[in-house]
C-alpha cells in the first residue's frame, strides 16, 4: 500500500514494537536491526495491519513476534515461499522477510535463488553473522573456510564462503544493498528504499554474533561506507560485487528495473458453471 493513501496515524518507531522481550544475547546485532526495521516502518508510515513480517528459524527469525505488525514465524528455510504466497494472495500488503545466513542461504538456498528470479515485490532482510547462533555456534554458508570455532568442524569447513549478493544479482534480485548493524539510522534509510523499490529487494546486514563470533565486534571498525553510488547496470554491479571484500556497506549497490511478478486475481467472465459445462456430454 502506498504510504500516501494510508490513514495518517503518525506512529513512532516504538509503536511498531511488541512488548515481547527478545531472547537475543546482550550486544547482539539483531537488536539494532529490530530498531532499524521499526524506524523504517514509521518512516514509511504504514498502518501496522498492512504489514507482514515473515521468518523461518534462527536468532534473526525471531523478529516477527517483536514487532506489532502481522507476523509469521514458520519452519527453517521456508520464509521466502510463505512470503511469496502471502504477497501474491494479498498484493496490497507490505511483506518483509527477516532471515539469517543459515536459514536464508543454506537450508533455504533454493528458495533464495528462485525468489530473486521470480521478483515478487517483497523485501528480504538477511542478518549475516557467519554462524548458526541458535544451535550454539556452527559454521554457516558465509563462514570463512578456516574458522575453527565450531565443534562440528574443528578444523574449519575448508569450503569457500557463499557470496549472497553475487548470487542474488545473478539470480535476478531487483535491489541489492549491504548495511552494517552498527549504523541503525542508515540501515533504516536503506530498508525504506528497499521496501519502496518494486520487486525483490535484498538487504544483507552484517550483524555480529557477540557470543559465538566475539571477534565480529571489530566489524564496526572494519566496515567502510561504499565509495560509489548504486548502479542500474547489472554487469557493472557484478564486477563490483565480485571484487569487493564484503565490508563495503551503507549504500544501495544495485537497482534493477525488472517488473515484479504479480499474477492478477481477476474475475473474468468465466464461472464455475462454465467449468462444469466443459465436462458435460
Amino acid at each position, binding site marked *: 500500500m502506498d504510504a500516501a493513501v494510508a490513514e495518517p496515524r503518525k506512529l513512532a518507531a516504538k509503536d511498531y514494537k511488541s512488548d515481547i522481550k527478545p531472547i537475543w544475547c546482550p550486544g547482539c546485532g539483531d537488536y539494532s536491526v529490530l530498531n532499524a526495521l521499526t524506524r523504517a516502518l514509521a518512516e514509511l508510515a504504514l498502518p501496522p495491519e498492512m504489514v507482514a513480517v515473515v521468518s523461518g528459524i534462527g536468532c534473526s527469525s525471531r523478529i516477527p513476534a517483536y514487532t506489532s505488525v502481522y507476523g509469521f514465524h514458520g519452519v527453517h528455510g521456508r520464509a521466502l515461499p510463505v512470503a511469496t*504466497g502471502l504477497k501474491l494472495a494479498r498484493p496490497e500488503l507490505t511483506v518483509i522477510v527477516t532471515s539469517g545466513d543459515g536459514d536464508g542461504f543454506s537450508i533455504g538456498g*533454493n528458495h533464495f535463488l*528462485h525468489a530473486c528470479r521470480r521478483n515478487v515485490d517483497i523485501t528480504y532482510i538477511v542478518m549475516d553473522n557467519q554462524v548458526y547462533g541458535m544451535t550454539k555456534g556452527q559454521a554457516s554458508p558465509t563462514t570463512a573456510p578456516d574458522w575453527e570455532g565450531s565443534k562440528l568442524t574443528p578444523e574449519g569447513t575448508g569450503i569457500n564462503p557463499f557470496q549472497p549478493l553475487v548470487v542474488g544479482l545473478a539470480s535476478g534480485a531487483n535491489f541489492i544493498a549491504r548495511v552494517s548493524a552498527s549504523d541503525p539510522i542508515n540501515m533504516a534509510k536503506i530498508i525504506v528504499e528497499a521496501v519502496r523499490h518494486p520487486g525483490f529487494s535484498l538487504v544483507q546486514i552484517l550483524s555480529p554474533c557477540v557470543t559465538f563470533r566475539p571477534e565480529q565486534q571489530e566489524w564496526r571498525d572494519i566496515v567502510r561506507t561504499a565509495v560509489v553510488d548504486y548502479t542500474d547496470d547489472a554487469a557493472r554491479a557484478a564486477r563490483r560485487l565480485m571484487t569487493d571484500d564484503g565490508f563495503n556497506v551503507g549504500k544501495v549497490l544495485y537497482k534493477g528495473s525488472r517488473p515484479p511478478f504479480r499474477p492478477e486475481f481477476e*474475475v473474468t467472465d468465466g464461472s464455475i458453471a462454465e467449468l462444469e459445462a466443459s465436462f458435460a456430454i
Partner: protein
Amino acid sequence: MAAQSVSLVIAGSGGAGVVTAGSLLLEAAANAGWYALMTRSAGPQIRGGEAAAMIRFATEPVASHDDSFHLLVAIDWENISRFAAEIPLVADSLLIGDPALGDAPAALLRNSPRQAGLAMSEIASSIEGGRPNMVALGAIAGMIGLPVAAMASVVTRQLKRKGQAAIDASMAAFNAGLAAAAGLPAVPRLPAVDSAAREERWSITGNEATGLGAIRGGVRFVAAYPITPATEVLEWLAPSLAKVGGVLVQAEDELASINQIIGASYGGVPALTATSGPGLSLMIESIGLAVAAEVPVVVVDVMRVGPSTGIATKSEQSDLNIAVYGMHGDAPHVVVAANSVADCLFTTQWAVHLAESMQTPALVLTDQLLGQSRAILPRPAELAFIGQRQTAVAAGEGQRYKRYALTGSGVSPMAIPGTPGLTYTADGLEHNELGTPSSQASDHQAQMDKRLRKVAGFDYGDHWADIMDAEAGGGDIAIITWGSSTGPAREALERFSAAGGKARLISLRLIAPAQPDKLAAALAGFERALVVEQSHGGQFHRMLRAFYDLPRQTLALYQPGPLPIGPARILDQLNAWRT
C-alpha cells in the same frame, strides 16, 4: 454388476495412437448413451512408448474394471508383454492382432484366449490418409454394437482442425474396420440406449474432478510443482482458476509449494496444492507447521507406487501411513480419501470445507488409478460445502486479540492481515493464547488439547463413510475398504447380492480422525469382516486395528500395486464365508 458391460483393451507402440483411439471410443460411447471407465497404462518412456487403453463400457455407471477383458486389439506387438499382467485374458477372451506383424507373444496366451487376425495396416494403407488405429476402432465398434453415427460425430469434431480430407480418411478407415468386424468372432454387445431416457452425463478424470472440487470448495490460490501422477490436477487448475478469479503459481519445489499455500491461506485466501508420495514426504514438516500455526490448507496426494521413486506411473494405496502418522509431534489433522472418480470431486470439496472450518490442514488421498481414469458418469450432485473460516473482526472491549484463544470447539476466530487492531504472529513454536512463544507445560497442554478438540469434536455427519448393503441386506459379513479398492469391492458386493448373498460394504472416506463409534454402529451384529486394500504392508488393516474394534473374524486382503485387487478375489472370500 447387474448392468451389462464389455471390457476391452487397445494396445500398441508409440505413434499407434491407442490413447487417442481410446478417447474417441469413450466419447462415442458417451454419445451412444453408455457409461464407461477408461484407464491408461504406459511404458516408462517420456514419449512414444508402448501404451494400452483399457476400457469398460456399461449400460450403468461403472466404478471398476472387470477381472478380465473380453477383447484385446493389438495394433502391433511392440513390448505388449509388459502389460500382460495388467490385461488378464481368459479362454473366452478374444485377442486380435495384425497378421502382417506375426504371432502374439506367449505372455498373452497363458490362458489360451481365442485369436483372430485383422489386417489393420493393410486395410489402412489402401485408404489415403487411413490409419490402423481407426481400422481397429471400426472393428471394435462393430463388435460391441457402438452406433456408427456416435463415432462419426466425435471424429468430425476431433478432426475439424485438420480439415474434411482428414475426417473422410478417418471415417473411411473406420468403416473398413466396421465391415471387417462381421467376419470376426463375437464378443459381448451392448444394447443401444433410448436417448429419451438419458440423464445428463459428464466425461471427467479423477484429477479433473479433484481440481473442480477445489474450486467449488472455494480454493483460489494453488501452488504447483509437477509430479506424476498429480500434474493433471494442477494443469487443469491453472486455466480454470484464472476463470474464477484465482491464481496458480509454479513453485521451485514441493517445500516451496506447501509454504506458498500456507502464506496465501494465512493471508485469508483458501489454498491448495497437489502432489504425489515423494512430494508429500517433502511437505510433511510444513504440514506440521500448518497444524501448529492453525493455517487451513488442503494437500492432495495422488498416490503412486512407493517407496522412493517407486513406479511413478502406477497406482498403490501405500501413503496412508505417512498421511496419518507422518508428522513429528502430536499433530491432529484431517485425512480424507476419495473412493471413485466422481468422489474425487466430493471429497476434495469436502476437504476444503473441513480445513477452513477447523483451521487445520486436510490431506486428500486419491491415487493414480482414480486420478488418471476417465469416466463417463452421471452429472455429480451440487454440494453445499464451501470453505467457511471463522474470522475475527475486532478484539473484545479493552482486550488484546487472542489468536489462539481456548474456545469450546477449539476453533479460534482468525484475524486476516489487513484487519486493524488484531495483529498477531502465527507461530510454529508452541505459544500461548496470544501467540507469544511459550515453553510452559501448561500452554503446551492447553494448545494441544485445543488443536485436538477442533478435529475430534467436529461433526463429520454421514460423510465419514459410504455404506452399501446387498439387496437382501447386510447379513453378518462386512467388507471394509477405502479409496480405489472401493470400486472392485462394490462390484463384488453387487455380484454377491445378485446371487442372493447378504453383506455390507463400508468404504471409509474420513481416514483421520478415526470414528470408532460410527464404525462400531455400522458393524453392530456383524460377525465377519474382510478388509481390502492395495498395500504391501496392510497399512489400512493395521490402522483399523489401532483405532477400531473389528469383528471377531476379520480377514485382511491386501497386495501392493500396481495390480488392483479384482472383484473376483473379494467375491471368493464372501462366497467362502457364505457356505
